[in-house]
């Protein structure tokens, strides 16, 4: 291509090999990883079957805590799913020049988190074989889902978001699948030929592809926000102290973005190391995501304080009892949440050295993921454990059954990601090439800097 841009200086065959390393090279570590994760997942499936055969009595659920760690997992995974597609969509719309290497990892994280998270309401159902009762279709039983229930809003919203996220991920991959089709042989070639839908990279295809990507990004953002708002309304619509709050929807959205960004950082750090993508996923990407994390930590702290302040000042006895329990029975979980979400990561992420050090920012992100998990434990179980009637107060502890299913959910997420990275390009090859194509070196006296050209939509359509 043009002698000036960075793509022209790059050996594209080498670039392809570097970015497709996850597809081209399979080590024994990959098989070992898949083996271990499969074993954990199989164990979890076995435990789930045992729970289904025996009944929900094998869990720690008991009056008044009927929503336990399974629902915590549901909120956690849906929250984790929030940021991948959202970040990707926002970065696409704002033409953030550093976005290309993180798009695919983030979008895949959303899709797999949703798949895992969406299973938990079904696992929690008790009579799991009757899950289809939630599907609205005419039937002889005269049953119909109650659309007034927030649980039904949830089912509709999560399905919309899952379909939207999967299509967003897929559409983003089409040009890369076309590259893989032309570079591979055997069964992979057949698979990529079908999945790339005959994309060739003609001028008309690229123009329409860009329009479709932009439309997807525009549409997926409000869906992402609505999904976590609706998850919060599962709780906020109930007159349970600690749940019935107007701030819950934005608070959940903020928490979801916060944990989602931390999840993206962890996934990026992992794939960077495993697939040797040091030249593509640079400290700059972690630095930028670190700034976002730092901001979200502040916003999360602000929301939490606002929620606490109104309850503290009001001293409504039912609500105050829930918050008081954070200082007694739930103190370890509460302290872990505050330390991991704000006290430790916020000052850490204020430092550029931490944001640019991959182990340090991965550690901060891990703390945030743990902290947000603790936050969900407090929201789901503490509020139910201190419901209005003191005579039924009862603390909740998960049993080995729930913990096994939780471990299996993490294994399932890891397994899906590992299989995906083996079959599909984990890096957005076309987006990275496009960025290189638009980048040139410009000199300022004795110094030089990267300059990135951007074609405005209007100009593009009008013809240059």
């Amino acid at each position, binding site marked *: *291509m043009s*002698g000036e841009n960075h*793509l*022209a200086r790059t050996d*594209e*065959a080498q670039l392809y090999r570097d970015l497709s390393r996850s597809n081209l090279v399979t080590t024994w570590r990959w098989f070992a990883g898949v083996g271990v994760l499969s074993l954990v997942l199989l164990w979890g499936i076995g435990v789930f079957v045992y729970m289904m055969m025996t009944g929900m009595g094998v869990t720690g659920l008991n009056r008044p805590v009927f929503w336990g760690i399974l629902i915590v997992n549901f909120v956690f995974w849906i929250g984790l799913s929030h940021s991948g597609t959202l970040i990707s969509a926002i970065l696409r719309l704002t033409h953030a020049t550093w976005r290309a290497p993180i798009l695919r990892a983030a979008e895949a994280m959303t899709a797999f988190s949703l798949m895992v998270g969406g299973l938990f309401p079904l696992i929690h159902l008790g009579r799991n074989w009757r899950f289809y009762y939630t599907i*609205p279709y005419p039937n002889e039983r*005269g049953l*119909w*889902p*109650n*659309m*007034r*229930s927030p649980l*039904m*809003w949830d089912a*509709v919203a999560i*399905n*919309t978001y899952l*379909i*939207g996220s999967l*299509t967003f991920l*897929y*559409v983003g991959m*089409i040009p890369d699948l076309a*590259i893989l089709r*032309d*570079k591979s042989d055997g069964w992979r070639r057949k698979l990529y030929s079908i999945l790339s*839908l*005959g*994309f*060739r*990279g*003609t*001028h*008309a*295809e*690229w*123009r*329409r*592809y*860009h*329009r*479709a990507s932009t*439309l*997807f990004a525009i*549409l*997926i953002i*409000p*869906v992402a926000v*609505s999904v976590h708002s*609706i998850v919060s309304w599962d709780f906020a619509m109930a007159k349970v102290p600690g749940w019935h709050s107007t701030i819950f929807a934005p608070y959940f959205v903020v928490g979801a973005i916060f944990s989602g960004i931390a999840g993206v950082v962890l996934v990026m750090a992992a794939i960077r190391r495993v697939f040797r993508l040091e030249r593509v996923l640079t400290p700059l990407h972690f630095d930028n995501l670190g700034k976002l994390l730092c901001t979200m930590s502040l916003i999360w702290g602000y929301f939490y304080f606002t929620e606490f302040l109104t309850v503290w000042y009001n001293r409504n006895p039912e609500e105050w009892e829930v918050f008081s329990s954070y200082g007694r029975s739930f103190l370890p979980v509460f302290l872990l949440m505050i330390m991991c979400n704000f006290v430790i990561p916020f000052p850490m992420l204020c430092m550029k050295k931490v944001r640019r050090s991959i182990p340090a920012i991965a550690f901060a992100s891990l703390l945030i993921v743990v902290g947000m998990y603790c936050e969900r434990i407090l929201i789901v179980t503490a509020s139910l454990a201190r419901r209005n009637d003191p005579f039924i107060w009862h603390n909740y502890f998960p049993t080995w059954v729930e913990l096994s299913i939780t471990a299996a959910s993490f294994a399932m997420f890891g397994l899906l990601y590992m299989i995906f990275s083996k079959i599909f390009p984990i890096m957005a090859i*076309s987006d990275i*090439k*496009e960025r290189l194509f638009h980048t040139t070196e410009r000199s300022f006296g004795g110094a030089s800097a990267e300059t990135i050209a951007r074609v405005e939509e209007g100009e*593009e*359509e*009008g*013809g*240059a």
Partner: protein
Amino acid sequence: MSSFVLIGLFDGVDQAAKAGHALRSLPLAAENITSISGVPLPDGSVTVDPRPIRFSLYVVVFWFVGALAGLALALATYLLYPLITAGKAIISIPPTLIITYEVAMLFALLATLILGAREMGLLRFRARKVHEPRVHDGKIAVCAVVEPGEQEIQARRAMKNAGAIDIRIEEGEL
């Protein structure tokens, strides 16, 4: 004799642009010339896409269709199976709005995928379309539908003068 596609392969965008300009001034119609590249090129830089992009308008239409479907789903539920919940009205507006919104967004997302793919000309597996895999190695292909004879000779000359490293003929659609 029927027309075919002449494909010229170029090392850089400047040579490809020169060829595109020369082909247009032959004159060849803009809809009979296109480029194939590994990265998107701005409209007009090498070739011009004369067809307007229409599917985004239909996405809006499908958003409204989805909204109607969501509305129907919620309303039909209330009317077919009237459940008096907590003394609330049989038809409750806020849940209806939520279901309507979600189904509308679902329809819009699916319409973007299906109509976008359709307008891109994808999914037509049986159609024979011209293809140049070397664009993934940094090359740019300029393709033109030409009639055999004088037009083909002129197009070949235009591509060669612009610096084409390979020129070949392929039967198929652009």
